[in-house]
């Protein structure tokens, strides 16, 4: 229908369309020569535009009816609005609303209690872990102390041995007292170091003729 309407233009379309079958339109409404901004013609100078005539009785009746209608609509609107406001108020402050809020608060408290329990559990695990770590640390420290003590003992023993050895050697030292005596001894016992020695440290008593 749209395409057919668009195709046919002008007054002829009135005859063809079928919606306005009766009469041809001699002049279609058009703006004409003048645009909006052009002033009206001189012939229209004294033209008084008269509004359409009004029947006063009908007007009164119609006005009264419109007033009643307005009052009715306002009343209906205010009734609905009041209902809505009441509903909204009940949701927050009414019984159901308060129950809902209490339930929410209770649930929150429950969740917080559960969270606290969780925290407690973790806290206990942490304490356990720390205790174990402390015990291990103490044991380690003990072992270290023992090792240290052992080392110290060894060291002391070594040093003591050295001291004793030195003391023993000191008996053979040449002092100013027995200097003369020792010189006499040496001169009286000449020692011959003119001997051969093999790799094992044995002195060669006799040489082998190969």
């Amino acid at each position, binding site marked *: 229908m749209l395409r057919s*309407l*668009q195709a046919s233009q002008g007054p002829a379309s*009135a005859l063809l369309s079928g919606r*306005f079958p009766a009469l041809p*339109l001699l002049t*279609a409404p058009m703006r004409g020569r003048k645009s909006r901004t052009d002033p009206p013609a001189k012939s229209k100078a004294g033209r008084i535009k008269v509004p359409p005539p009004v029947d006063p009785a009908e007007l009164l009746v119609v006005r009264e009816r419109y007033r009643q209608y307005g009052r009715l609509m306002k009343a209906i609107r205010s009734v609905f609005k009041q209902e809505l406001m009441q509903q909204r108020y009940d949701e927050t402050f009414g019984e159901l609303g308060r129950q809902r809020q209490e339930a929410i608060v209770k649930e929150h408290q429950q969740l917080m209690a559960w969270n606290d329990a*969780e*925290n407690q559990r*973790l806290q206990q695990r942490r304490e356990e872990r720390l205790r174990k770590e402390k015990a291990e640390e103490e044991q380690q420290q003990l072992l270290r102390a023992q090792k240290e003590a052992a080392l110290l003992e060894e060291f002391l023993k070594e040093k003591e041995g050295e001291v004793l050895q030195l003391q023993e050697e000191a008996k053979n030292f040449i002092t100013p007292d027995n200097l003369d005596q020792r010189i006499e001894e040496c001169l009286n016992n000449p020692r011959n170091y003119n001997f051969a020695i093999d790799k094992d440290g044995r002195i060669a008593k006799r040489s082998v003729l190969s």
Partner: protein
Amino acid sequence: MPMKGRFPIRRTLQYLSQGDVIFKDAVKVMTVNYNTSGALGEGARKFVFFNIPQIQYKNPWLQIVMFKNMTPSPFVKFYLDTGEQVLVDVEEKTNKEIVQHIKKILGKSEETLQKETKEKMKLRHPATFGPRKYHLRECMCEIKGQIPCPGEIPLPKEMRGKYKAAMKENTVSEANSV
């Protein structure tokens, strides 16, 4: 340079929208204390690295503050608008466990979320016309199969008010004359 950082997937919208923790309206601030080393705080580190962006994306009005190496053990603390502070110990937990725990104690439940989406849908009636902010369409001319906008393509004369009025006047005057 399209990819930035060590795990650029964290910056994708798809990854961010997969976060499922939406906090209750009462939660205003979230504080995370974690350590950069230590085997027990590995879950907390992963939580901060992978899950905090998702949480922030889903809760844009939540303030999240993070502290490094301030305490020996990691924890998360929430500050509610009632003044209550909720402490969550996260020392020996994996990041998934942390997310589950947080969701349980302070997240909005499924029913609440569904109710909220329903209420949002109520405000948007798909059959109404009006400004784009509140409606789907502004005018019938936008719909396929309907008459195009008379602003673009002028209506045929038979549909225009002034033509119809002129025709009506014509018929009245002719009827009167006859």
